């Protein structure tokens, strides 16, 4: 009712150019985002608070604690690195931001409602403002990190001449992340090209006499890019031709699975198309686990403890990836009305789901083992054994994940914990 009143009583609604005021659209988009991500949003904030609780130290100041928590972002400001490192780091931050948005694309874009809302007379700029507002909400945990980093940097008096350029650089990172995310959501590669160019400028100007002006220029350019909508399409958009080698995934599948390729393709399509956001989230989680494990391995100077950290990281990665089983299972259930009438075994999808999850997990489980092998001297045979053990764990976790929705996390954690301890004991 409140929205209706706003719609009809608002003075803006009387003007022909804004026949429908933007507020109701924003209201519904935010409401949809909250409804669609309620559980996920809660989990992310729980994760953030848990990380704060685990990493915060009672013996240090608040600013030191904030600095520790925001280390991934503040590392960008560390002197002693060259252009290539800083450019690569800026790109990695943009990539992480894009992945963050990509994994919640459906929720940010407003769902099926926007297909209808697209027929209403909103200007592109109004739509952009609403998109941006929803994106800022979706990015809130990341923006909190930027705010914390700015606070720490601003309070840092030892590097007084660099404080303003550094603060501007952090603002640049946030604004460029929004530009890159919008470019990904709107499928406008020119936005990426702009963000890439800005990263070159920022990396080249770091701690030079022009840093202040270059950083300020990027802030202004990014702000303008966010305000201007829509960005021009890629010059070759719509003219792409199917390349002769474009079917290589199909050929590879046929090579691997023979006549079963169409069925394996179903499981892969669920993971890579329907549940792409979840797959990206799992990738990001495993990257975070690996990054944390790698930091600990460094802290332990790559001694025996570092090997145990690598094995623990593999267990955590297996546990994280096992959540994929439920999504696959639900997708098969949704189509059972048709597939049940086909002459396949009732559990035809089980083997293909397993193959998909194990194929997805293999490279991710191999990374910590490879790191332990190269950096901490874990013998190659033991590294291979650890990969095999955790692949078996990943397969075994299908049962607890599908056993009962409410207890899936607890049961899977118990299984993964016991398995990890057994693997550590066996390999040490």
């Amino acid at each position, binding site marked *: 009712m409140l929205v209706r009143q706003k719609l009809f009583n608002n003075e803006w609604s009387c003007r022909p150019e804004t026949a429908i005021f933007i507020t109701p659209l924003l209201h519904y988009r935010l409401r949809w985002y909250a409804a669609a991500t309620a559980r996920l949003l809660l989990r992310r904030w729980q994760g953030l608070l848990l990380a704060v609780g685990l990493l915060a130290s009672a013996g240090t100041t608040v600013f030191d604690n904030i600095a520790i928590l925001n280390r991934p972002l503040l590392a960008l400001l560390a002197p002693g690195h060259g252009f290539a490192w800083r450019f690569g780091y800026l790109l990695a931050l943009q990539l992480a931001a894009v992945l963050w948005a990509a994994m919640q694309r459906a929720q940010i874009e407003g769902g099926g409602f926007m297909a209808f809302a697209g027929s209403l007379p909103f200007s592109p700029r109004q739509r952009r403002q609403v998109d941006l507002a929803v994106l800022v909400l979706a990015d809130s945990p990341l923006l909190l990190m930027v705010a914390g980093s700015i606070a720490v940097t601003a309070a840092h008096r030892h590097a007084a001449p660099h404080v303003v350029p550094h603060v501007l650089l952090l603002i640049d990172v946030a604004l460029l992340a929004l530009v890159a995310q919008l470019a990904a959501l709107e499928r406008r590669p020119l936005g990426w090209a702009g963000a890439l160019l800005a990263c070159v400028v920022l990396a080249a100007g770091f701690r030079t006499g022009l840093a202040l002006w270059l950083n300020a220029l990027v802030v202004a350019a990014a702000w303008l890019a966010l305000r201007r909508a829509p960005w021009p399409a890629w010059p070759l958009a719509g003219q792409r031709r199917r390349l002769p080698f474009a079917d290589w995934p199909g050929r590879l599948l046929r090579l691997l699975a023979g006549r079963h390729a169409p069925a394996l393709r179903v499981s892969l399509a669920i993971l890579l198309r*329907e549940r792409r956001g979840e797959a990206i989230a799992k990738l990001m989680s495993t990257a975070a686990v690996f990054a944390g494990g790698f930091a600990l391995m460094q802290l332990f100077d790559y001694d025996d403890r570092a090997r145990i950290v690598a094995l623990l990281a593999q267990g955590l990665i297996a546990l994280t990836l096992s959540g994929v089983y439920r999504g696959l299972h639900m997708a098969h259930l*949704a189509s059972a009305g*048709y*597939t049940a*009438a086909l002459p396949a075994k009732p559990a035809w999808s089980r083997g293909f789901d397993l193959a998909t999850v194990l194929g997805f997990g293999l490279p991710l489980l191999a990374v910590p083992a490879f790191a332990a092998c190269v950096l901490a001297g874990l013998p190659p045979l033991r590294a291979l054994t650890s990969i095999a053990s955790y692949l078996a764990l990943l397969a075994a976790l299908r049962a607890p994940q599908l056993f009962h929705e409410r207890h899936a996390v607890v049961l899977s954690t118990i299984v993964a914990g016991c398995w990890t301890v057994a693997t550590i004991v066996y390999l040490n």
Partner: protein
Amino acid sequence: MLRFEGICKSYGPRPVLQGLSAEFGAGAWALRGPNGVGKSTLLKVLAGAVEPDAGAVWIDEVPLHTDPTAAKARLAYAPDECPVYPFMTGRELLAFVAWAKRCDLSAEVLDIVDGFGLTRHLDTRCGAMSLGTQKKLMLAAGWIGDPAVLLCDEPSNGLDAQARLVLIDLLREKSLQATVLVSTHDQTFAQALGATVLDFADLHECLPTVRD
């Protein structure tokens, strides 16, 4: 070719099918009845997509309840809606059905796909297809594996005039050598098929069989 006895099915406390029995030989059969009477449920049960509470179904003499894989290899089912994975392309769906039926996509099926004008939609995801295109895809998949029994739920719904004519020709031809059982409210369509029209209520009463 299609026989069922004593089929019962309830959803919760609400009985939908109560002791249905019939036998169909080669030919076209049109099942009609008011909305919600249980036509779609019966077709789902006959297709093995829904398990009955009681009763048995034979597809081309193969019992569906004891040898479901062999029985389903001899039948095809085209539901009213498109309950397949929305992320699958048309081509992937056809390949998947052929995989399940352990056969290749025959030239006949590819001709049917072409006849329905589906060729240009084969790389489109099912979720992005129009309802009519989804319907044509599900119907075209029905010819994979040369089934002895073809079960179609409201096959003419949502089809354009050209596709409707193509479907009528295909079903007429198929009914010469297979059992084609369709549920439909469209009397003109049933007549064009040359189908024997069965009232669902009569099916309840005319136990035990409807013979060719």
